[in-house]
């Protein structure tokens, strides 16, 4: 090992990083599966409802606000693009397909990561460093069941619902700029949405939101849960770094998995 390190440092570094990455992915997969199966244990309903309220209901306003302005911007940008080809009548279909297939799931997931994912990582991290997770164990309360499972369940429930809200409000935002501001025909706008949008588009969008839900919940909970295992920092600093890592890794993974799922759906 020592010889490899000195003779071919580049390959040694790459190899070590790869091993670490595979190890982390494996640990996260086990973490998710344990958390997922414990959703179905008794006494979970109340905790799941609490988390749906926090991750889902409390994120509704911000998600709808972002959806509205995303739709309005799309309306503006696409109108001036489509008018060059005398195709402004297609505005409704282009906006709805962009939102439902791509922008809705991705932007919703990023918004929830920023709002609730960071909070998940920080809250669990604080529970860890203040020994509250150990306290749960000493009380014979499984920390995975009590802390992680409800958050995974809540994310799986909330992400598709919030994505649907985002899509709907985004289409209305496009209507506000395209129809009311720029004068696209109102009937043509909604007719094109209805004609060109297919069930497979909606299904694909929801599939993405489910994948993002699993990724975001797993990454954020994992980062918080193993805050104490960090070797680069301790205490409050480790919670801070875990939260940062949770948000950054989640956002990157949302975009990477978006490409993977899109290519599989095409």
């Amino acid at each position, binding site marked *: 090992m020592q010889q490899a390190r000195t003779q071919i440092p580049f390959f040694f570094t790459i190899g070590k990083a790869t091993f670490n990455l595979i190890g982390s992915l494996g640990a996260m997969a086990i973490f998710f599966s344990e958390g997922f199966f414990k959703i179905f244990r008794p*006494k979970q309903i109340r905790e799941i409802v609490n988390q749906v309220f926090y991750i889902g209901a409390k994120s509704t306003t911000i998600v709808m606000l972002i959806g509205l302005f995303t739709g309005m911007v799309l309306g503006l940008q696409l109108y001036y693009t489509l008018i060059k080809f005398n195709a402004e009548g297609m505005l409704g279909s282009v906006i709805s397909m962009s939102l439902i297939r791509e922008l809705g799931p991705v932007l919703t997931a990023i918004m929830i990561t920023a709002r609730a994912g960071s909070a998940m990582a920080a809250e669990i991290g604080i529970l860890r460093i*203040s*020994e*509250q997770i*150990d*306290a749960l*164990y*000493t*009380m*014979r*309360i499984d920390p995975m069941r*009590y802390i992680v499972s409800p958050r995974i369940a809540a994310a799986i429930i909330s992400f598709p619902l919030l994505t649907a809200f985002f899509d709907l409000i985004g289409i209305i935002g496009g209507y506000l700029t395209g129809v009311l501001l720029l004068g696209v025909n109102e009937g043509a706008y909604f007719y094109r949405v209805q004609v060109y949008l297919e069930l497979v588009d909606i299904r694909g969008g929801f599939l993405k939101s489910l994948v993002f839900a699993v990724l975001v919940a797993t990454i954020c909970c994992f980062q918080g849960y193993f805050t104490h295992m960090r070797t680069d920092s301790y205490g409050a600093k480790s919670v801070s770094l875990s939260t940062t890592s949770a948000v950054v890794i989640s956002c990157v993974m949302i975009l990477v998995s978006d490409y993977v799922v899109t290519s599989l759906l095409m």
Partner: protein
Amino acid sequence: MSSRHFSCRTSVDTPLIEFRDVTKRFGDRTILDKISLKIYENQITTIIGKSGTGKSVLLKHIIGLLTPDEGTILFRGMPVHEMGRGEWDAYRSQISYMFQNNALFDSLTVFDNVALPLRQTTNLRKREVMKKVVTRIQQTELSEVARKYPSELSGGMQKRVALARALVTDPKIVLFDEPTTGQDPIRKNIILSMIAHYRRQFGFTAVLISHDIPDVFFISDRIILLWEGKAAFEGSYEESTHLDHPMIDELLHSMEGFQDELTGLLSKQVFRNRYTMTLQKGQLDSTISAILFTVEFDLVADMFGAPVFEILKIMGQNINDFFGPLGGFSARHERNQLLTILPHIGLHDAQALLEKFTHQLQEKAFSDIQLMIQSRMGADMCLNLSVKAGVIEGKSTDDIDTIMAMAEASQTTVGVYKCESRGEAH
């Protein structure tokens, strides 16, 4: 430094929990090094030792938060790592753990914190949970703050919440990890007496980590001294006082500050330094007198914890107020012995001073004690104590331990306090 193992059995029963050659390492550091010790049922076992000697690690092994790298932990003679899932669960259901920092859930109210283990681990109905939680909250005098959050409470109250949560499941064993850390001297003793009081009330086995030497010895049935990863001593408080062991001396001295927090007198170390500096310097043969007071409690008093601490505090203050202006200086030796040195005073004068002090004992100290007992325990509660004193004359070159031994040998009872008759002095 190699550790010798002194074991003094206080019970012939099978131990409730036994460590056999348990080793725990964190990286290159060996925290527990083939440690063997025993914890007996229905006793308060106190683990003492310097910081970083593995006291918390030891406690975490008992509850299963950590597992040993080598060795065996036995519960009623059965190795815990060989237990099946059901047995392990049954074993853990008998243990509660009170964390050093309480580990209360900040987002839950006091009531919800206490109710949490019942709601999550039992199938009790809502009404039954409510009843049990309310009972524990009342017993720990938290009724007025049941709807408050932990951050709104004082440190002492948070300790009581942690204790209520630890006791709500009716555990057979409660592990206390430094329950008095960060508390002021009065609150420390209240917490210690609270542990002793609830141990009697609920009948559990307590394992306690504490640095509050010697106050913690009042409530301890058994003491375990951890030293360099091993149990250097196991036994009762009385056995530890007869043990001439450098590690115990070093530990006791290292934990003493400038003052004995409870009595307000000098710490033993400062007392010894002052003795050497003021008496032995330049006057090799100057006369001194020494008075050794011993406060003895009856069995009932010993069980009440907090009043015992308060009585020692009152005695310390009275001795200091009386002998201090005369040039005397005093310190507490052992848990209930107070030694006063009177420089340049002969035996005859010292005896006269003791006689005067005996009058003050009856007039003031016993009155203060009576008032304190009535305010703390109510008018109907009873507590008896006696004060012994021994006065000797010596030379300033005499060793403190020799003086102590001589004074102890000459002790006679100088005051008796009985609950029904206030105090009487001889």
